[in-house]
Structure formats: C-alpha cells, structure tokens
C-alpha cells in the first residue's frame, strides 16, 4: 500500500461515488432517478479509467454511455411516462431474498476469485504497450489493423441494430 498520494485520493472519491450511486440506482424506485444515479456512477468509472491510463475510454464512457445510451433510456422512460415503480409490493419473496443472496454470494466469489487470480503473465502482449501519455494514435492504429475485421463487423451490427430498433418501435408493421 503506497503512501497517501493524490492519485489515491482521487481513486477513493471516484470509487466511492461509483459504488454509492450504483447502490442508489438499485434501491431507487423512480426510473428517472436510477438513470441519473447510473450517470454519476459512470462518471466515477470514467475517472477510474483515467487513473488506469485510458483517458480515451473515459471520454467514450461519458460521450457514448452517459451522452447517448442513457439519454435514450431517459427518452423511453419519459415516453412511457414511468413514474413510480408500481406500488403493489413484490409478490415473490423467494425470488427477492434468493436473488439478493445469490447476488452477494456471486459478488463475493468473484471478488475472491479475481483477487486470488494470478497476476496476468508479463509474457508476450497481444496488443502494443500502452504508450504514455498519448495512447489514442496507438489505439487507432490497432483498430484499423489487427481489429479491422471486428471493427467492420461491428459497424454492420450497429446498422442492423438501428434498422431493427426502427422497425420494432414503428407503430404498425406494414
């Protein structure tokens, strides 16, 4: 555990924000508010990303996730005008308790597993080293060389998704 450095402080705040608002998101009854809390969580995450030498990803996190996806959520929520989660309380206690237990168990397991997992070998890297401080050109180069095919497929996927969404949300299929 290194000495209390600025980075450490930032990490503490960010992770606290993320976790706290994630919890808030779950316990929140109003969908809109859960969305907002999720946004805050994403902020925390993007800060963590910056700490992990991935500012580009951090920007994407905000730009795409907070900026596009969650806005979409908000839209739908407003469109369907979902106020409170229906008042009548959960009529399946088993599901509730069991779900909670399983979630906690799995979380614990995973935490333990990840911590116990051996440090990934320093062996041959699959991608190039993370160049400091500016990793973006490297990312771009990687994206258009090694991952070109995946990239193209992805673009196709996005296209299909767009068409599908359009078709689904049309009033009638004709």
């Amino acid at each position, binding site marked *: 555990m290194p000495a209390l450095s600025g980075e450490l402080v930032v990490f503490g705040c960010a992770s606290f924000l993320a976790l706290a608002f994630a919890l808030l998101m779950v316990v929140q009854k109003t969908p809109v508010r859960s969305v907002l809390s999720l946004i805050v969580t994403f902020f925390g995450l993007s800060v963590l990303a910056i700490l992990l030498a991935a500012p580009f990803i951090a920007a994407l996190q905000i730009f795409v996730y907070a900026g596009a996806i969650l806005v979409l959520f908000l839209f739908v929520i407003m469109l369907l005008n979902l106020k409170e989660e229906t008042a009548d309380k959960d009529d399946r206690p088993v599901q509730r308790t069991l779900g909670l237990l399983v979630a906690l168990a799995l979380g614990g*397991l995973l935490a333990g*597993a990840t911590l116990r997992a051996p440090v990934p070998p320093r062996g041959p890297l699959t991608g190039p080293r993370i160049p400091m401080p500016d990793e973006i050109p490297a990312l771009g180069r990687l994206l258009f060389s090694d991952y070109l095919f995946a990239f193209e497929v992805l673009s196709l996927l996005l296209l299909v998704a767009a068409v599908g969404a359009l078709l689904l949300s049309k009033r009638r299929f004709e």
Partner: protein
Amino acid sequence: MKQLWLIPALPLAGFLLNGLVALVASSMRAEKESGADHPGVPLPYAQRLFHGVVGVGSVGLAAVLSFAALVPYALGSMQVPEGLAPIVQKVYTWMAAGDYTIDVAFRLDTLSALMLSFVTLVGTLIHVYSVGYMQKEEGYGRYFSYLNLFMFAMLTLVLADSLPLLFVGWEGVGLCSYLLIGYYYDKDFAVAAGKKAFIANRVGDFGMVLGIFGVFALFGTADFSFVELAKRQVLAGNAPLGVYAVCLLLFLGACGKSAQGPLYVWLPDAMAGPTPVSALIHAATMVTAGVYLIARCSALFVLAPDALTLVAWIGAGTAIFAATIGLAQNDIKKVLAYSTVSQLGYMFLACGVGAFGAGMFHVFTHSFFKACLFLGSGSVIHAMHHEQDMRKMGGLAGRIPQTFRTMLVATLAIAGIVPLAGFFSKDMILGSAAASGHWVLYLVGLFTAGLTAFYMFRLVSMTFFGAPRGHAEHAHESPATMTVPLWILAAFSVVAGAVGIPAVLGGTDAVSRFLEPSVTHPPIGEMAHGLEIGLMLLSLGVAVTGLAWAWRWYGRAAGPVEAVSPQAHAFYEKTGALGRLVANRWNVDEGIEALVLSPFRKIGTFLWRGFDALFIDGIANASAFLVELLGDLLRFFTTGHVRNYALAFTLGFAALVAYVWMS
C-alpha cells in the same frame, strides 16, 4: 480441335437455358391460369421458337464441333497403319484419393470418333424432327431441355476417358431415358414404363459399378489406359485372376443398357415415350452404349474368352428371341422396339465372336436406318392422329408418300438388301461368326435375318399397302421439319455401308481398319473368297425370302381389322399354343413377375409390416414418448418470469465460479 469439353458442354448449356425458361414460363402460366400444365394447350409461339432454337442450336453446334474434331483425326488416322494416338484432354481433377486421381478427361480415338459421328448427326436430326413432332405439346420446353440433357450425357459417355466418367454419362442417359419415357407423366402406363426402364437399368448398373471396381482392382486405374495394360497382357498371353468376373459384371451392365437377355423387357415398354425419343434414345444412341462399352473393354474380354463366348450366345439368343416376338406385334412402335432388341443382339453376337469392328459397324449403320424407321413410324402416327395399331392402318403409301418412301428404304436397309447399309454390316457380322467357326451362331443369325426381313416388311405392308382400315383415309403428310430428317436418314441408310464394303466386293473394309487401333480382338480365321461370296448370297437370299413371304401374306391384305391377313391368321390358328405364346411375347413379363417381382414384393411387404412398422417405428415412437414425458415434467420450469430464469442462470454461474475456485 483443342476444346473437346465444349462438345458435351454445349448441350448442357442448352439444357440449363431451356429448363430455366420452361420453368419460369410454366410457373408464370400457372399464375395466370390454374395449374401448370394444360394438356393440348400449345405454348406461345415465341417460347416455342426459343426452345427450338436453343435445343437444336446447341446440339447442332456440338455436332459441328465434333465433326471439326473427328474428321481431321479420322483422316489422319487412316493414313498411318497403326492409327493416330488418341487425343486425351484433361479438364480438371474430379476426385483425388491419396496419389490416385480421377480426372474429368475427354478422349478422342477412332472408337469414340465413330460413336461421336452418328450420335451427334442423328441427335441433331432428331432434334429438328422434334420441332415439328412436338409442337402441339404443352411440355415443349421440358421436352427439349431433357433432350439436350440427354445429348450432354451421351456425349460425356462417348468421350469419357475413364470408366467413372463414362459411368456418369451412363447414368445420365439412364436418367434422361427415364424422364423422357415418363414424359406423359399424366398417363399411368408411361410412368410405369419409366420406372420399369429405370429399375431394369439399375440391375445392369449394379453390375457396371462392380465391374468398374473390379477394373480398378485389377489394373490400379479406371481410366482407359487400363485397356493398354490389358492389351499388353493379351500379348503376354496371361489373364489376371478375376478378369472373368469383371468381364461378366461389365457385360451385365451392358445388358441392362442395351436390353440384352432377360433385361430386354424395359425397351418395348419404353415406347411409351414420344416417338423421337424412342428413335434417339431407344434405337440409335443410348441402347448402343452397351456395345460401345464392350468394344471399349475389348482387350479385357479377349483376356476372358469364355466370357466373350457367353456374350455371343446371349446376343444371338436375344436376337432370335426378340425377332420371333416381333413377328406377331401389331403396335408399329412395338415391332420396331423388338427389332431394335434383336439388332442389338446381332451387335453383341458380333462382339462375342470377337468381331468388335463388325459390331460397331452395325451400331453405326443401324443407328441410321432404325432412327429413320422410328421417325417414319412417328410420322405415320402423327398422320394417323396417334393411332399406333397397324391393323387400323394400311394403304397409307399414297397418302404420306415421303414417309412411305423413306421407310421403305430403311426397311430394305435393315432387311439387308444389297447395296444398302444394313447388308454390309449384317453380313460382316455373319461372316465373322462363320469365319471364327461359330457355325451355330451363324445359322441363328442367318435365320434371324430372315425373320427380320419378314417382320419389317410385314410392318411396311400393313402400314402402307393393302386397303385402308380405320381412319387411314384422311391421313396427312407431316411438315418439312419431320420429312427432311427422314430423307437425310434414309440417304445415310443407303450410303453408310460404303465405309465397310468387304475386300471381296472390291471394297476396302475401311471401318475395321479404322477401328483397329482402339479395339483388340482374337484372331479371326480367314475365309476362302468363294465361301464368303456364297455366304453373302445365302444371307441375301434369306432376306429376300423373308420379304417375299411378308409381301405374300400382307402385301395386298384387305382383311378386317382383327384378321388383317387371312393367310397369316390361318397360320396363326394352326400354330396354336406356340403362336399364342409368341403373340404373348413368350410371357416373359409374366414370368419375371412370377419368379422375381412377386417374391421380392412379398419380402418387402414383410419387412415393411413386420420389421419397419413394428420394430423401427416402435423404437422411434418409444423414444419420442419418453421425451414427451420428460418434457411434460420439465416444462414447469418455464415459469415465464424472466427473473426466475435470470436467477437460475446466475445460480449456475455461481456454482461454476465456485467449482473453478475450489479446484
């Protein structure tokens, strides 16, 4: 010519084009009117034109190409005594197993050149003929596409350089024959005939396949280089073990395709198809494939003399047997069918006595006059509005003169009258039978020649001479597209023999010398010229006698429909049981039914009812029932609540993680 593959490829293209257009058009019609096929509703002229042009054009072009290929080759090969080396062109490697590969390769040697010549020629003519004959058919496009497909298969068969590829063509022609016999698929007898042909051929093909395997086992290769190997062994004079079996198997295949022995039964029924089909497939080309095969593998057969003898006997037997049946048939096409069987018998007889050249020569000539006869009969049927019973004809000579003349020529040719084609080929066969010392076979052949002359002239007489019966009064001549091919074929039936005029008659016996490089045959003894001339005169005399007899009985026949010729009828009455037997085709079909089919049917029924229905289905149903039971229990896990599924999924995952962690 560099691209032999083009020759089969062109008809294939034609088939695809025609088939596609026909399909699309018929489906469009089906949308417009109800039901795809409308019997008797001819196609629109434009479509007919298209099919005609494509069908005839592709085959015609193939014919041109093949002549461009074979004429230089043939001429060149005639110059040198041992003949030119065969042209073999590999298209691509078809299958490769280890170091052994089977190529799609085409071979042009004197044998295939001979086949090629008449196959393409007759094929083209018959395509032309079909344009006129089929024009009223609603299945015009289908017909032409099948016909083109047949040409493709036949040319593949002829040009193939390996038994497997030859087998492809072999099966292809079988398929097309089936399709075309069953062309009138709304008529039960046509469908049945098609099936019969197909199954009979299966019997043969079974032998064929095993034969191919055998060849491969013996020589380690299945392309025709094995012939060379076999030839060497002939020279070395040692026959590898099992060559007998291979020969018999291959011969079985040949029997199936060429309607020999008991397997002939499908050919007469095959007359259910349109007449041009009978002419092309069941007279001129396909059925001679068996002979071609034997000639191809001549070296092999020479290694197995006993097998060769068997071939001879089967051939002779079939020849006389079919001829006797031909005597008493009244359906014009049936007579021709039996005559075809009998003639094929001749060819096998020739091969059997080792005169492969003579056999192929007869194949050559026969294709012309038999095609001519069939097309003629087709023209007659056309004129008689699909009446095939000769007893309802008669006196047509004046009404359809062109058909009459051409058919008469062809009849004389097949009867073996000097100097028509049939004379030379048949005589060469008989001569070589005699020369090889098979006198019994010779006599059988001779007698058959007489019978042939008789029933053929009987056919002509009943059709064209005497008093018109039935609707014979208002018969009308066929269009030019039908008569022109008739004339051409008639002309060939006259001159085709020229290539085989024997030495004694001052000829050069070109055909034998031509085929010499590609066939191997056992030594055939020489005959004294005097004897040879004598035999010729004898056979000629027999033929003339047959003709005369037929003329005496049927020439001026004016009797009623049930007994056209009183003398013949009286004779028939006298022969009693035997006559009835002959008239009833020796009850062969019934015999096969009783001895082969019904037992098979019984076994099949048992297996179906007892084994399949109870045992196999039992297993299937039981397992299905178990699954259903399980499903009935398990289905309650599908609560329809997403969260339950998610929970179950998560539980499973947690378990997995735990397991991984623990281990």
